[in-house]
């Protein structure tokens, strides 16, 4: 418990310190990273805990973003108010889609969710009367708290950090509850979970819907921050990016989700100095990370920590602690 509270305080502390010291450009990147972190913590429910390979996560983010954008620009709603139907509607949609879809497993599910993402893009680009087509939706109003407009990257970052913190606390509480354990049981062995009385379908659909809810929140933040959305902002490349963030950070861990989101947001920008070849290098670096750090950064960190706690003692105990997924916080 203490380590969790400590991690949270560290996160908020570092976030606040950065918000006061870095340039506007880095603040913008931090905001993008925070928005991605919300989405990836959500993806962690579906993939990290429940083992569902979802390559359509960006579509849920897009659904939330579009609902908010259309309600605010066409019907004049305030963004705070519009967020409610955006988030709840997306969650509901995910639950309905999940019911038939989540019978699939492994790469079949991956391809199905990929197909969904692509379909979402096609509809968003072609249903011009509703979505504005590829011109997107512009002039989305920004957020305002108690009359003060959250103009500028710094103010938005404070809001984003608060949102990430609250959502992380909720996610952590869920993970330690029996619902979280049910998800992990389903991930590890569906048959055994069913035989222990877990309602596998309900657990999977709940995980999927919850991940969509988080994605929709990220979508709302995105829409209110950039003030312009278009179908390309939610294509399947973004879904793959979210999954990569989770894996690089360390799947099954909330800290990993946040770290992965930050790293993969900043890495391409840091590599800008390489000029035209920076994307080629980015791909190679990703591959290297996957080969040499298969459990992600958090996996590496936890492995080192476990090994340090039990120095000479039973080597088998230490390795099983590293290998056992149940040990992750």
């Amino acid at each position, binding site marked *: 418990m203490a380590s969790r509270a400590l991690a949270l305080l560290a996160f908020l502390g570092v976030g606040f310190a950065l918000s006061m010291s870095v340039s506007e450009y880095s603040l913008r990147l931090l905001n993008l990273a925070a928005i991605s972190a919300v989405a990836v913590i959500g993806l962690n429910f579906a993939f990290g805990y429940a083992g569902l390979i979802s390559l359509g996560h960006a579509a849920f983010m897009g659904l939330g973003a579009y609902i908010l954008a259309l309600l605010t620009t066409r019907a004049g709603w305030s963004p705070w108010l519009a967020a409610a139907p955006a988030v709840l509607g997306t969650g509901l949609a995910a639950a309905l889609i999940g019911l038939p879809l989540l*019978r699939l497993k492994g790469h079949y599910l991956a391809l*199905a969710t990929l197909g969904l993402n692509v379909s979402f893009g096609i509809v968003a680009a072609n249903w011009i009367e509703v979505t504005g087509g590829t011109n997107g939706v512009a002039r989305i109003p920004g957020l305002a708290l108690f009359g003060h407009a959250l103009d500028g990257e710094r103010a938005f970052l404070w809001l984003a950090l608060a949102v990430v913190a609250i959502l992380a606390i909720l996610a952590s509480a869920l993970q330690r509850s029996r619902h979280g354990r049910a998800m992990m049981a389903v991930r590890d062995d569906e048959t055994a979970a069913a035989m222990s009385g877990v309602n596998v379908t309900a657990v999977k659909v709940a995980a999927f819907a919850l991940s969509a809810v988080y994605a929709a929140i990220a979508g709302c933040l995105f829409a209110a921050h950039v003030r312009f959305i278009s179908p390309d902002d939610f294509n399947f490349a973004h879904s793959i990016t979210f999954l990569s963030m989770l894996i690089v950070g360390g799947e099954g861990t909330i800290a990993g989700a946040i770290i992965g989101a930050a790293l993969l947001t900043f890495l391409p920008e840091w590599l800008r100095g390489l000029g035209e070849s920076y994307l080629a290098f980015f791909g190679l670096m990703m591959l290297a990370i996957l080969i040499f750090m298969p459990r992600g950064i958090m996996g590496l960190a936890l492995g080192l920590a476990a090994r340090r706690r039990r120095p000479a003692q039973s080597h088998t105990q230490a390795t099983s602690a590293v290998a056992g997924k149940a040990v992750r916080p």
Partner: protein
Amino acid sequence: MADLIQLMTNGLALGSVYALAAIGFVIVYSATGVVNFAAGQFVMVGTFAGVATLLNAGLPMPIGYAGALVAMALFGALFYLVVYLPLRASPIVTVIIGTVAIGITLQNAALLTFGSWPFRLPSPFEGMMIELAGAVVSVHALAVVVATAVMIGLLWLLLHRTVIGVAMRAVAQDVKAARLMGLRVQGLLAFSWILGAVMAGVAGLMLGPMWFADVNMGDPIALKAFAATVIGGFGSLPGAIAGGFFVGLAEVLGASYISSAYKDLIAFGVMILFLLVRPQGIFGEPIQDRG
């Protein structure tokens, strides 16, 4: 009627390309269990291998094509060494993301090498047209369909009538048993990657003259190849072919008779439908867990 023949020919030609891309994808999947998300980039590399040999080096066509296919074989072997081997014990998602990452690198490397302008690959049937019941059809399109059929026939011969082909099928069925029988599993896996790459290369060389070669052509092809594989049956070669032709025809006929804007939705919609109702596709065996 003439219009229908025209549409059917174009749909079949398109379908042949998707079928070949899907075949390359399925060969790798059956043997190694890897879902290669860079399958589209494989085709793109094949097309640009053609650009390098035929346009940049100006070699005569037979040598140019052969050279490009040799390059693709080498590329397949390289991919096996650099991407497959290090990741072979990793969970499936890691491998998927790994292939995506390499796909990004391939795309950008191609951009750096060849620039962003599209290229026009020459065809042995440049400009030739024939009349078919009132419809004017390009000979290249017909040649693509025929060539695909020939490739499929050769592939069948390889897999069913040669020692190495039978060994590959054994590895695809059960890796442990194959190893116990004394088969050189690693070598066969490498050969699968090489074969998959060569198939993708053939697809790329054939569609180069039809579509123009550009470095971003890979992703849309991959999506259609996935749809084709799902519809036809994952892990099944006849399935890949049937699926490919279905997607190609659905695209062209759907554009004509239903809606040109939403026609891609048809292919993906059918794919999702199959996944929900009959995940093994048309020809697939019931889904087993891979080792």
